């Protein structure tokens, strides 16, 4: 990884979670934009993968994120009723209800896998969400230490 001269980062000893977020283009991505335009400060641990709609998100994406070393995954899209594609988020919701059960059974619990509705108007909610998720994952510790879903090497 690249390091910059101006590094004032916390001591390497401190565990800094890597969090992968899958968000829809119309609500949560825009909500994150709003957090930016409002200059709301939040933890820098999250990396966003933009998709058109939460309906596009295959559970395999989540497993791949964990496999590649994410300590937690966030899936976020439009509130029920707000989906730009009318029902993509409803389809996603049903999928996640089942999938999270499966992951819970195999040891990936609510401190690793997060779901939220964040609208384009909810910049503050997005910022709070990122901070909250980051704090929870800090507490949960590194995923790669503890799960068959991780990449061994």
């Amino acid at each position, binding site marked *: *990884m*690249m390091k*910059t*001269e*101006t*590094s*004032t*980062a916390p001591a390497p000893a401190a565990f800094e979670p*890597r969090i*992968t977020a899958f968000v829809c283009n*119309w*609500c949560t*991505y*825009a909500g*994150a*934009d709003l*957090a*930016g*335009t409002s*200059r*709301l*400060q*939040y933890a*820098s641990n999250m*990396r*966003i*993968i933009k*998709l*058109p*709609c939460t*309906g*596009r*998100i*295959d559970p395999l*994406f989540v497993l*791949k*994120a964990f496999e*590649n*070393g*994410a300590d937690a995954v966030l899936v976020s899209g*439009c509130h029920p*009723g*707000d*989906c*730009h*594609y*009318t*029902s*993509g988020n409803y*389809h*996603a919701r049903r*999928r996640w209800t089942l999938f999270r059960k499966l992951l819970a059974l195999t040891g990936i619990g609510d401190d690793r896998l997060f779901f939220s509705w964040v*609208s*384009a*108007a909810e910049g503050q909610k997005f*910022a709070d969400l990122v901070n909250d998720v980051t704090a929870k994952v800090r507490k949960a510790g590194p995923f790669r230490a503890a799960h068959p879903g991780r990449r061994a090497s």
Partner: protein
Amino acid sequence: MARIGVFICHCGENIGRTVDCAAVSAAAAKMPGVVVGVDYKYMCSDPGQQMIRKAIIEQKLTGVVVGACSPRMHERTFRAAAAEAGLNPYLLEMANLREHCSWVHSNQAEATQKAIDLVRVMVAKVRRNRALRPIRVPVEPTALVVGGGIAGIQAALDIAAGGKKVVLVESGPSIGGHMARLSETFPTLDCSQCILTPRMVEAASHPNITLMTYSEVASVEGFVGNFTVTIRRKARYVDPAKCTGCGDCFNKCPIKKIPNEFDAGLGQRRAIYVPFPQAVPNKPVIDAAHCTMLQKGKCGLCAKVCPRGAIDYQDQDRLEKVKVGAVVLATGFQLWDHAAYGEYGGGRLRDVIDGFAFERLASASGPTGGLIKRPSDGKEPQTVVFLQCCGSRDDKVGKKYCSKICCMYTAKHAMLYRHKVYEGRAVVFYMDVRAAGKGYEEFVRRAIEADGAEYVRGRVSRITRRRDGKLVVRGADTLAGRPVTIEADLVVLADAVVPRPGSEKLAQLFGVGYDQDGFYSEAHPKLRPVETAAAGVFLAGACQAPKDIPETVSQASAAAAKVLGLFAKPELEREPVIARVNRTTCAHCRACISACPYGAAKDFDIVDRAGKVLRAVADVNEGLCQGCGTCASVCRSHSVDLDGFTDEQIHAELNAL
């Protein structure tokens, strides 16, 4: 072999302040497939775009990543630049280093690291991008305008003037909306109906406008350029084709004591009625809930007296489909119900009224013929207390936001009252006076200085009714720092402006977002204030946020301009983000067909030369597909993929993290 160019924008100081742009471009230059990695002060500026165009040509780039602001801001700009240099625009992606990074993080090392990651992800993606061609769909050059207030009327007239057809849908029996209820309008005090009614008549008579009053949107199908909207035409029980509006029916109707909504309940109407004399269309409807004929099957007087036999008690709601290419939502607002304020009488004190009631009292065409008489005993109030921010700027009981129009109409009310009751006393309680607008501040000064309205800065804590009918208003004068008690005859509350009931449901039908208060969300607060996230659906007036008349009218015209712009081309270019089916591997489980919100996924038979069906698979209709990708994620074998967000691209993005 990929030849990717990475261009990092400082956005002046906006990104550069927190992100070490030089480090980011240096890191990018070392990423697999990257041949150019540079940073520059303003990438979106002409020299910046020129830098990209030049690199595309000279370095024979196969893909471009611009690390700058949000793609919602400038993706179009940069893709256009790429296209000018001969690169397919869909081979350019943006990494969001401003909204998602520099503006939200302060630690430079962390922000820079995140910026590098975001760029790496986009480089990985763009290496898998494929050249795409926009999809062309025909546009139905007819607009639907929902709401017949001044916003809807203005939008409809402007679109019609532009030579395009308009369907104007209004849920009430007449168009005109709230503006028709106003006495005079600030800051010029010209009579509301005098300026509005000609527009109403013009809208009704315009050859390009189809008026559908007493009608509502029932359902919506399709997408920008090709909506099919089902309108519910509510039963009027009066055939507008036969009715001449002579008025015999409502003059004879025996049911007389129904509070008239138009007059804020201060006046009364019959069971068959026109809401107000200047209504358009000026043809009555029967209020089924109150009509004894429709309720009990007795009476039938109106039918007897109607010279044209226009009365039809068998009339029923009808569903009518209209095909439109664009939609303007102009559903307007209503006043928040101050019953929630127990300390102000909880809505039970008859002489504590809202702004619309006062408008009707002051209106020459109102129930009192323009004389200010209080509802309880019809006496002329000698002291009137006006109370601003009633429900606004109060997130405990009311609303967080400022309703914007109250300061001005309260000043107007005080003024009108003083003009009509010379000896009367007008006291205005306010938190702040917000009079930003052409001639607005002057108008408020006039109310205070010329017309002697007493402005008291402070809140009213309690309104009680004394036995003699006086309203005792207790409050605080926060400037003088002492409690005040005023014995008033009438209190006018400037209730908060809130969206119309059912506006959420309508938004959902059109796929339009709305905020926590129910106001419709614009696509961008500054640069796309008229558009919504739903392509082809535009906003006008107070359904988006509290607005006064001039603002509403200008936004309505803006929406009309957007619609006309959309209709200027016979075909619409759509983002080529659409799903594709791999027919070789599709097992035809039909999950995608069930999942598709647009009916774009459908069965397809693979046939041999003789036309014999070999196998059935799923297929996607390009015209209908909107690119949500739900079909792709329900496909267990990943035989459905989504252009622009393919399996390969997402997989690569994840591997880059």
